[in-house]
């Protein structure tokens, strides 16, 4: 078999071969520096949306007609984790076209799905690659893959393997049987920690917009914008804003099980109000010569933290759509009302400063 060196974007090139031999490219189980660097970039930026491998058939080690077949997504990180965990084994990997999205999310969207798998099995001519009828799908792919239809349409029997690729060697040794632990998806502190950059990142993208409004609000005078007022009045609010992002997108996800209540909105609000209270200690009451801005801050920022914390439901492994819908049904009107109310309070504060009221 021709050997393709696995580079940034491996191509499952059909290497010229004798009749009946499979066309697949060889993939290493070792990670290069680029692979490690790529993983870090995926964890912190939208680079992840462009981190793809080409769909198709790949070989790990020296697989033959009896070797196992594993299926994964074409998000390169998914593929990389699988090939790393298959170290020392001889196996085939089928990469589905999931538009560069991981197995679980793609299964939910249907791209890691029954039709794509059927088409891919036909495209790579799997019948000619192996002599058995076992195909191992990551368990979380079961959301999108219907095992019965796959068997009816392709003859291949779907085995739902372990949730985590690291359990694959033990799963094979046990005769394709999962322990109950291998079936469960976990969400420990490290799992949560690696997800937080992609919570902070989108929240911080909105921060300049928030900052601009704050500076205009505090700087505006009947005579025009005063930079000194904008900065002095706005600074505590900018700090409160940064704190809301930090609390909602980092602290709440990290401490998730230790914060009381099951609702993410409530968890975020609770940590938010504690943080606002703690920060208030740093501001002398005479700073604004009025209580109004502080009241507005007490209303707005814990709820900002709550809203940001609620976004984390998208990254967790245990929240349900019905639960998030319920949170939003109550939450969205509260967020909108509270934002309007805080704005109103600040406007009253400004008008009282201008001695209009």
């Amino acid at each position, binding site marked *: 078999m021709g050997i393709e060196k696995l580079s940034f974007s491996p191509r499952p090139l059909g290497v010229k071969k004798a009749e009946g031999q499979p066309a697949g490219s060889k993939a290493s189980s070792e990670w290069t520096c680029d692979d490690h660097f790529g993983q870090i970039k995926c964890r912190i930026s939208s680079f992840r949306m462009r981190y793809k491998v080409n769909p198709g058939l790949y070989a790990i080690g020296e697989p033959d007609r009896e070797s196992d077949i594993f299926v994964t997504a074409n998000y390169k990180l998914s593929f990389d984790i699988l090939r790393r965990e298959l170290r020392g084994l001889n196996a085939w990997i089928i990469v589905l076209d999931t*538009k560069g999205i991981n197995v679980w999310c793609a299964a939910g969207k249907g791209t890691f799905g029954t039709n794509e798998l059927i088409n891919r099995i036909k495209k790579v001519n799997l019948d000619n690659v192996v002599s058995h009828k076992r195909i191992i799908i990551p368990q979380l792919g079961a959301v999108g893959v219907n095992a019965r239809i796959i068997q009816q349409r392709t003859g291949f029997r779907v085995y739902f393997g372990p949730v985590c690729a690291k359990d694959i060697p033990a799963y094979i040794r046990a005769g394709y049987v999962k322990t109950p632990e291998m079936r469960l998806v976990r969400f420990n502190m490290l799992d949560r920690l690696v997800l937080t950059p992609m919570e902070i990142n989108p929240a911080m993208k909105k921060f300049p917009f928030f900052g601009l409004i704050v500076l205009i609000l505090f700087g505006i005078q009947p005579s025009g914008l005063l930079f000194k007022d904008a900065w002095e009045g706005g600074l505590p609010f900018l700090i409160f804003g940064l704190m809301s992002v930090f609390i909602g997108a980092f602290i709440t996800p990290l401490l998730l099980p230790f914060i009381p209540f099951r609702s993410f909105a409530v968890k975020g609000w609770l940590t938010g109000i504690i943080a606002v209270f703690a920060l208030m200690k740093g501001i002398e009451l005479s700073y604004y010569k009025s209580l109004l801005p502080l009241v507005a801050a007490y209303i707005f920022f814990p709820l900002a933290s709550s809203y940001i914390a609620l976004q984390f439901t998208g*990254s967790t492994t245990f929240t349900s759509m019905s639960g998030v*819908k319920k949170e939003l049904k109550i939450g969205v009107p509260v967020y909108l009302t509270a934002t309007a109310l805080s704005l109103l309070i600040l406007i009253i504060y400004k008008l009282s400063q201008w001695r209009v009221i």
Partner: protein
Amino acid sequence: MKYIADVVTLEFFQEKCTGCGKCVEVCPHGVFLIRDKKAFVTDRDRCMECGACANNCEFGAIRVNSGVGCAAAIINGMITGGPPSCDCGVESGNNCCG
């Protein structure tokens, strides 16, 4: 960790169950177990509505309203009036799904 109680749409019709155990095999939260050759729901509040069980139950014994469960996707759905969608991809600029 458990999410909000009594919200999930998971329905299990035990009379249709043959005890094949597919639901036990695919559920990532151990919601199903087999007892007396039939599946049963151990803890409904652990269900995250991923839909893997219903998708793979050959006997129609499980029904669940599954869908993209992130807040951004649901707010998107509220605005567009369509189903929840995070619309992840290079084109949309959204990147919640890695």
